């Protein structure tokens, strides 16, 4: 919540949190006493309480949320009001968040509830993120109760929780301050709603993992989650508009009064803290929690210590406040009071509720506690104290708070002892809050129940829970999550130390949620005509209508609202970059770029900057001249191009000419655009096959030769009706090279051996490159004979440099561009140019010298690459290594020439053939351009300064690509060199001059216009995290060449922290420093960034070879956004029910989300896993594998058995569709739970801690928060 939301000004509302806290506490209290069941009760109870609040909130929210704008206004009124006003219009999310914040501040819960509801509707998107949790809850309104009660949106709740947590995070920071208590409270409210229950429930088991105490906890946990989610659902509506708010509120709650308090308590726990803590310092938190718990049952009290919240705000007040407070909050300001009040309200409600129900529920808590105690104990005790302290600066406050808390809540109970514990308790409390929440909202409880069921089924499945939740709360989930977090955290702690360590992942921003939300809202085709409009996420299927800007399939920007000045850009640290995929394949329902012919004179261009004719050219003087949109230079319109203007100043033929109306189109290039002023020859493909011992033995040679026979009919062509004009040639090699003469007039192919590898040359011209159809018989004869000829080879040494030289020379001799397909197996140690030695040295890893391992071993390949580029010789490398082959060096040429590297380690014909062949097929068939030069022109004011991808640059502006295929993306970074104006925005034109596969010279133009802003908030409102991650990863992966890996990681973290800190400082409404507030558009930045940091390249595990890392490094360099997204955050689909036409909703990449009884499909773009739970349902197994026995599943299978049942069919369809989406074929690996292979699989559960030391999402979020706080302080 806090997280996302944010920004919202929630922080201010921290106070509200207190309110929450109250509720939370209350619940907690109740919680203790009441078992889970109680929760329900409480929930209901809460609901009532909540309802009022909700109502109020609603009202407030409604206004905001509901009428999107209005709502926003409303919300804005609160805190953000002002700021948001604008935002609302612009970036709803922002506004929303703000509202949330406001709300939250004022009255976390309440606000959340209401706002979301209302807001949500209006602007689902914006609000959604934030709120999902909170907002939806709007439902909450009603929900509030619901929240707690409705829990349905557990996820949301969680989200909210997360948000909350975040807040809590801040709280911690702020914590020290007063906030803490509040925060804790606030969190509580939200968190509580969600969290509490979990805490308790799970506390024990559920939340955390529900492991130990599956039933109850799970129930609770789930319930909590549910709650969370439910809330979120309810919030959802809000989300859209307000939900965030609600969340924010949560967060805010914390901040406000308590910031310090909150922190304390919070830190301890709470929503924010909890979440935040949990997330961040989960461990600490956990620790805290545990202690608290242990300490208490009191913990519950502690939680309530949040009571501190209550403390902060008199419980009563809180209670009462809630309702009122919410409204107030929404209105805002009365933060302290309100916040206290509001949160209280909700909380109170909760509290009230909770207690009552709470008791019921609490009882559960009690149990949980016990359980918690159990779990907590371990973690709890020690950590608690420390953690809490750690957390805070907040700590101190906590202490303070504790007291307060105790007093308020159970103050009596455990205040003293509690204090520390309380904090921890707080967390637990939070959890409790959750519960409380739940309690309040029977919903949660209810949900829990449902969930419980779920949980029962799938204890781990919080996912499942989420899933459910999501359903309801997709958008809203966000906000709620915060709550969930709370809940979660609590649970975590409750469950066990380990559990404790984790924050409830549900409470932190969920990528899945964001993806689902975006999907949900992207129903209309995306039209590119509106400047500065961010396109749907890459994970969303959408149609694009080109209305003057390039389709996002061609260009994606990190920011669609660029800062006007360099100062702003520098301040925000948001990278300004575009990921350009010039030859991207478009779906069948989108028109490929039109071809424009401007006649003999060539394309019409600006006289000064040479930009090509495009929609940004302004025709003036009746159409006789045009003014360049990039450099403002005025150029005469050539007579043959003249056209009159209509009354609006547009050319009459504007819509008849693609170059005047579309974002992407192609020009026919004239001879002036050709090398040596000569029209190009058709390109050639040369296949260079390693035939050394290893290659033959692995079966590679046979496979390649066999496949080529049929594949040669599918050489790329522009017109499917025509035969491809691409000529082919064949070379085999080991220590020497064998060229083949396959001239059509020969009866048999002739082999020409070139042993002079030190000075490579091409032994023949005529007969080497041939037309497939003419020489078919000879070629087939050759391909039949190659495997035979070398079947008995004993040659193990290979060369590599000369192989590429050979291809290059052949192309030179034929005077054409082309592509080399090199199939290579081993480190080239034979005496020849480019000879390499084995330099893999594990000892260097982690040292300053590590970078040298990524640099090429010898300079030879750089020179060679340059020559290749000059000739238009693109190299695709297929590696089949059995040991170190020095990918770092071998890939220099492919990477510099726009080629690809494929690696099949330990290649075995049987198991890897399919993957290899599919890659090969695709690689050969895909459309490709040659001898390309790309240039990016921009408006005055910015300039393309840096380029990432597979290419070569001989100067600073021209990107030279020997080959460019439809899968290659180039990331371009822009820097200011002057001011931009908001009026004209920033324009960029990417022009690629290339030779098509039919040998025609073309110019492909992509135009892109984005807005410029003078307010940072606008920047943050309109950026795209996936693209930013794409940029960061490329930047970092290139960085390891010259910097120690650790430095690269630190740089990334720093920049990310700065981005978020800047937002927090400049855009978020004031709030306690302890809150973690994330911009809506970037709320996933931490999780994704963590994935980048944990990648094998930046944080290698012991089993990751240097080659693998080098391979990944180059792989990333040309990935587009969608590939990099799934690469860093794999898609994990639960396979329970498969419906045709739609995919199951993915779950988050965490082991916790896996159910023993389920089967999951995980996709990374490179790998495809089918994970089978140890106790997967027999029916499921039967449907998939044709066997009911888990043990009979063959883990070595690479394709699913073809079974005649809808499930199997659909699953295979899904697998196929995944494969079709990715440029590389993914081999299916079946992973059985508890199998050794599961280790590999787990590696891709990126939200978890990884074996190599990578932080879990939660941990990292905490860390990030700490970084941000440091920056802010």
């Amino acid at each position, binding site marked *: 919540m806090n997280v996302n939301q944010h920004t919202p000004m929630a922080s201010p509302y921290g106070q509200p949190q207190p309110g929450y806290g109250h509720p939370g506490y209350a619940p907690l209290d109740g919680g203790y006493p009441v078992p889970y069941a109680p929760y329900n009760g409480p929930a209901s109870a809460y609901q009532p309480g909540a309802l009022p609040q909700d109502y109020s909130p609603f009202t407030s929210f409604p206004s905001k949320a509901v009428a999107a704008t209005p709502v926003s206004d409303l919300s804005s009124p609160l805190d953000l009001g002002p700021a948001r006003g604008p935002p609302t219009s612009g970036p709803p999310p922002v506004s929303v968040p703000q509202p949330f914040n406001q709300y939250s501040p004022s009255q976390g819960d309440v606000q959340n509830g209401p706002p979301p509801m209302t807001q949500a509707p209006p602007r689902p998107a914006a609000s959604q993120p934030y709120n999902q949790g909170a907002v939806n809850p709007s439902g909450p309104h009603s929900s509030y109760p619901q929240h707690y009660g409705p829990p349905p949106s557990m996820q949301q709740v969680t989200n909210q929780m997360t948000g909350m947590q975040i807040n809590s995070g801040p709280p911690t920071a702020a914590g020290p301050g007063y906030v803490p208590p509040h925060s804790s409270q606030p969190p509580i409210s939200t968190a509580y709603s969600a969290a509490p229950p979990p805490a308790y429930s799970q506390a024990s088991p559920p939340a955390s993992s529900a492991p130990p105490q599956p039933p109850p906890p799970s129930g609770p946990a789930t319930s909590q989650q549910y709650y969370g989610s439910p809330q979120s659902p309810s919030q959802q509506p809000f989300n859209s508009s307000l939900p965030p708010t609600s969340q924010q509120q949560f967060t805010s709650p914390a901040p406000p009064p308590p910031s310090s308090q909150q922190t304390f308590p919070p830190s301890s726990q709470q929503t924010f803290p909890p979440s935040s803590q949990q997330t961040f310092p989960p461990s600490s938190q956990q620790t805290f929690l545990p202690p608290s718990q242990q300490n208490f049952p009191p913990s519950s009290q502690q939680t309530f210590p949040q009571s501190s919240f209550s403390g902060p705000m008199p419980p009563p007040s809180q209670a009462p406040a809630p309702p009122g407070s919410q409204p107030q909050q929404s209105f805002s300001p009365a933060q302290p009071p309100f916040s206290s009040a509001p949160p209280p309200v909700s909380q109170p409600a909760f509290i009230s509720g909770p207690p009552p129900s709470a008791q019921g529920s609490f009882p559960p808590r009690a149990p949980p506690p016990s359980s918690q105690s159990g779990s907590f104990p371990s973690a709890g005790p020690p950590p608690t104290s420390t953690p809490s302290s750690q957390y805070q600066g907040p700590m101190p406050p906590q202490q303070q708070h504790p007291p307060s808390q105790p007093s308020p809540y159970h103050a009596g109970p455990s205040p003293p002892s509690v204090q520390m514990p309380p904090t921890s308790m707080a967390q637990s409390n939070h959890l409790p809050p959750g519960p409380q929440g739940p309690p309040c909202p029977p919903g949660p409880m209810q949900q829990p129940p449902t969930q419980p069921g779920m949980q029962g089924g799938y204890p781990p499945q919080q996912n499942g829970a989420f899933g459910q939740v999501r359903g309801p709360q997709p958008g809203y989930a966000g906000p709620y999550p915060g709550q969930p977090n709370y809940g979660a955290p609590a649970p975590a702690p409750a469950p066990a130390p380990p559990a404790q360590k984790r924050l409830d992942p549900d409470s932190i921003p969920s990528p899945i949620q964001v993806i689902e939300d975006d999907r949900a809202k992207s129903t209309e085709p995306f039209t590119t005509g509106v400047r500065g409009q961010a396109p749907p996420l890459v994970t969303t299927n959408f149609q694009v209508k080109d209305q003057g800007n390039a389709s996002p399939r061609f260009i994606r920007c990190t920011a669609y609202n660029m800062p006007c000045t360099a100062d702003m850009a520098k301040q925000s640290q948001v990278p300004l970059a575009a990921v350009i995929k010039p030859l991207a394949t478009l779906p069948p329902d989108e028109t490929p770029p039109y071809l424009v012919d401007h006649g003999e004179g060539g394309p019409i261009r600006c006289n000064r900057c040479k930009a090509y004719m495009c929609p940004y050219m302004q025709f003036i003087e009746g159409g006789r001249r045009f003014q360049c949109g990039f450099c403002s230079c005025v150029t005469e319109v050539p007579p043959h191009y003249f056209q009159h203007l209509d009354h609006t100043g547009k050319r009459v033929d504007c819509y008849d000419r693609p170059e005047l109306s579309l974002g992407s189109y192609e020009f026919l290039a004239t001879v002036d655009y050709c090398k040596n002023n000569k029209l190009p020859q058709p390109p050639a493909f040369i296949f260079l096959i390693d035939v050394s011992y290893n290659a033959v033995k692995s079966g590679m040679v046979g496979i390649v030769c066999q496949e080529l026979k049929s594949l040669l009919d599918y050489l790329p062509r522009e017109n499917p009706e025509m035969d491809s004009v691409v000529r082919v040639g064949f070379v085999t090699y080991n220590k*020497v090279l*064998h*060229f083949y003469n396959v001239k059509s007039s*020969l*009866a*048999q*192919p*002739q*082999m*020409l*051996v*070139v*042993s*002079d590898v030190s*000075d490579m*040359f091409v*032994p*023949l*011209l*005529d*007969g080497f490159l041939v037309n497939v159809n003419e020489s078919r018989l000879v070629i087939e004869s*050759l391909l039949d*004979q190659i495997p*035979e*000829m070398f079947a008995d080879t004993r040659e193990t040494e290979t060369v590599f440099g000369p192989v590429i030289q050979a291809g290059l020379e052949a192309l030179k001799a034929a005077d054409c561009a082309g592509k080399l397909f090199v199939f290579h197996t081993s480190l080239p140690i034979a005496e020849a140019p480019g000879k390499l030695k084995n330099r893999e040295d594990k000892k260097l890893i982690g040292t300053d010298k590590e970078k040298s391992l990524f640099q090429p071993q010898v300079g030879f390949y750089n020179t060679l690459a340059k020559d290749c580029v000059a000739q238009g010789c693109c190299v695709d490398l297929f590696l089949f290594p059995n040991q170190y082959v020095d990918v770092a060096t071998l890939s220099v040429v492919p990477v510099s020439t726009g080629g690809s590297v494929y690696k099949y380690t330990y290649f075995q014909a049987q198991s890897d053939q399919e993957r290899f062949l599919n890659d090969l097929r695709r690689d050969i068939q895909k459309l490709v351009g040659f001898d390309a030069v790309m240039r990016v022109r921009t408006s005055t004011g910015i300039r393309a300064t840096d380029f990432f991808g597979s290419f070569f640059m001989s100067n600073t502006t021209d990107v030279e690509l020997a080959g460019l295929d439809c899968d290659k993306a180039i990331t371009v970074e822009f820097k200011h060199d002057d001011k931009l104006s908001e009026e004209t925005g920033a324009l960029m034109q990417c022009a690629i001059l290339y030779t098509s596969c039919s040998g025609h010279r073309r110019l492909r133009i992509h135009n892109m216009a984005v807005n410029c802003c003078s307010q940072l908030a606008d920047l943050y409102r309109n950026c795209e995290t996936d693209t930013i991650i794409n940029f960061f990863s490329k930047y970092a992966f290139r960085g390891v060449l010259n910097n120690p890996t650790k430095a690269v990681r630190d740089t990334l973290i720093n920049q990310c922290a700065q981005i978020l800190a800047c937002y927090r400082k400049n855009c978020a409404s004031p709030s306690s420093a302890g809150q973690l507030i994330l911009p809506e558009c970037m709320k996933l930045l931490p999780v994704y960034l963590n994935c980048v940091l944990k990648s094998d390249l930046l944080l290698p595990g012991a089993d990751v070879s240097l080659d693998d890392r080098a391979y990944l490094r180059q792989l990333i360099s040309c990935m587009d956004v969608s590939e990099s997204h799934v690469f860093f955050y794999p898609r994990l689909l639960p396979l329970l029910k498969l419906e045709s036409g739609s995919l199951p909703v993915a779950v988050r990449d965490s082991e916790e989300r896996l159910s023993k009884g389920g089967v999951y499909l995980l996709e990374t773009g490179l790998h495809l896993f089918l994970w089978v739970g140890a106790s997967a349902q027999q029916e499921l197994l039967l449907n998939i594998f044709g066997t009911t026995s888990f043990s009979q599943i063959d883990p070595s299978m690479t394709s699913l058995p073809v079974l005649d049942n809808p499930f199997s069919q659909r699953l295979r369809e899904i697998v196929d569709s995944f494969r079709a989406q990715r440029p590389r074929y993914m081999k299916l690996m079946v992973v059985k739970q508890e199998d050794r292979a599961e280790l590999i699989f787990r590696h891709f559960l990126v939200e978890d801690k990884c074996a190599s030391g990578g932080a879990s999402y939660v941990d990292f979020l905490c860390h990030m928060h700490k970084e941000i706080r440091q920056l802010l302080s």
Partner: protein
Amino acid sequence: MATYQEFIQQNEDRDGVRFSWNLWPSSRLEATRLVAPVSCLFTPLKERPDLPPVQYEPVLCSRANCKAVLNPLCQVDFRAKIWACNFCFQRNPFPPSYAGISEVNQPAELMPQFSTIEYIVQRGPPAPLIFLYVVDTCLEEEDLQALKESLQMSLSLLPPNALVGLITFGRMVQVHELSCEGIAKSYVFRGTKDLSAKQIQEMLGLMKPAAAGNQGRPAAPQDAAASSGKFWFLQPVHRVDMNLTDLLGELQRDPWPVPQGKRPLRSTGVALTVAVGLLEGTFPNTGARVMLFIGGPPTQGPGMVVGDELKTPIRSWHDIQKDNARHLKKATKYYEALANRSAVNGHNIDIYACALDQTGLLEMKCLSNLTGGHIVMGDSFNTSLFKQTFQRVFSKDYNGDFRMAFGGVLEVKTSRELKVCGTIGPCVSLNSKGSCVSENEMGIGGTSQWKVCSLTPSTTLGIYFEVVNQHNAPVPQGGRGAVQFVTQYQHSNTQKRIRVTTIARNWADAQSQIQHIESSFDQEAAAVLMARLGVFRAESEEGPDVLRWLDRQLIRLFMFHLRRSPFLQVFNNSPDESSYYRHHFVRQDLTQSLIMIQPILYSYSFHGPPEPVLLDSSSILPDRILLMDTFFQLVIYHGETIAQWRKAGYQEMAEYENFKQLLQAPLDDAQEILQTRFPMPRYIDTEHGGSQARFLLSKVNPSQTHNNLYAWGQETGAPILTDDVSLQVFMDHLKKLAVSSSA
């Protein structure tokens, strides 16, 4: 005693030796005064159908630095079973196997009629014959086709167990692997890069087998070749016959485009390097024949003779004299180095150059000259000249063996009064210093052993001696000097053989027996020997100097023609032609050499039987048919009247049968010459006023020229339009010079 003429003839028939002097002046001083050195033409493998080889090892003198072979001149003590070396006077016991000898039971080598004897020795396994074709593919389609056919035909002429290999070249050099089925495989080398033998062997994958199979166990190179599978490039004919025939059939012209105004890129130098390197790595010291077929000059890489720009013509003598031939020295040096390597390994290189323009023989001649290979020059591969010449390379002797031998080593041993100065012929020095080696070098000197990588029955070396006996230490009356020629070689049937020729001549005191010495002078031999010296010097020195030197050595009539011959005169000849002529001059036997120096002219007429006539313009008469044999050309010249008759078709009329016969006679004679001559001469049928008549006109003595035409009247002969001096003028001048120089 028979006349010297008979003696000389007998000696030549028996031993293949002709000395310039058949009595040797007994002191250095006297010998020097004789002007013509004591020297001989020696034909090591002169065909001796009557000489059965003996199947045992020769008996050698036991003195380490002598090792002369037991011969009829040795004194033998049959009782003591001891023989005395007639060169070093060492007394040697007979080996145990000779225990049974006695005056009446003498081994062959002691019998006087076996002054030349041939031993078959069993040393190691028989070495295979190796034929490596190196084929230029930058030919016109028609030429290439003809060449391919010739090559395919040649496969049937090879003994089945001979190893063959194929290298083709154009812009690139391809070494074809012959053993693989299905796919034609070849190793390719860039035509512009000089490679060391080691590199080549590495690139061909020959390193290990070469080391193990040949040096370690020279016994079984053939087995190794057959069994190891490593010697893909040289395979027994019987095994790859079909493959190779197909391969040759599929040979394409060099596929690289030749832009207008350019010569095709021809990597002759590298091709040869690869060939030499291949053999060096696989069969060192085994007889092998590299047969190079070229249709143009090397235009790239090492050994380049001319650039590929057609606008730059290939060097002419004019360029060479002006020092304007930029590739000449470099290329020559390159080929010389190559030739030496090849010679060291016992491989010879043939050059078959067929092109209308020069092909760079000037630079490449040493390849053949040093290794004993053939050079054949023609206009096209699609001519009978080439086809028949090539076929004749594989001609067989009375035993059915090829008329070729490999890896010959000629050793000369002399008695003490004589030392050997050197040889002139297709050989290289083995740098074997010994007591019989003179410090005074003539030809290839400084050694008593030479390697002659390829020998034919007609290969003749000129060997020059020096009398070292001091004037004050006269040889006892009746003393005889002896020379022993020991030739070890690999017979074409793969046997190792040693032929030993031992000859002796009497010493004579020049003061007292000058008459005898004079009468023992062999004019023909001396002329050829002197001419060889002249040619040898012409190769290495400036033309005018050689002529001046020659002018000082008076050898009557021959000298006139020699002066005008293409061997010394470069005018009207391209550098390649000069090289070609000289090449053949220094290897042919005496008879052929004489023809080369002074062409033979036969006259056919109704006036009588064919008769030799003076090689003079006065012999060119309207009613004669002339047949001129210059060795390189065979010209049939119809006099003006005859030509008119022939044109009128009289020969077709029954009543002029005699005319028909007259026309036929020279043709038959020419055919006879053509049958035996190697290389095939250029056969020219021309008539008075025909353009080809220039071949005749350029040879005859211009006794009638436009300068003296009117003085001589018009009744006989044909005027030659030349500024050359006639024999008459030459003789006048010579006389004058003789008088003045003696003063």
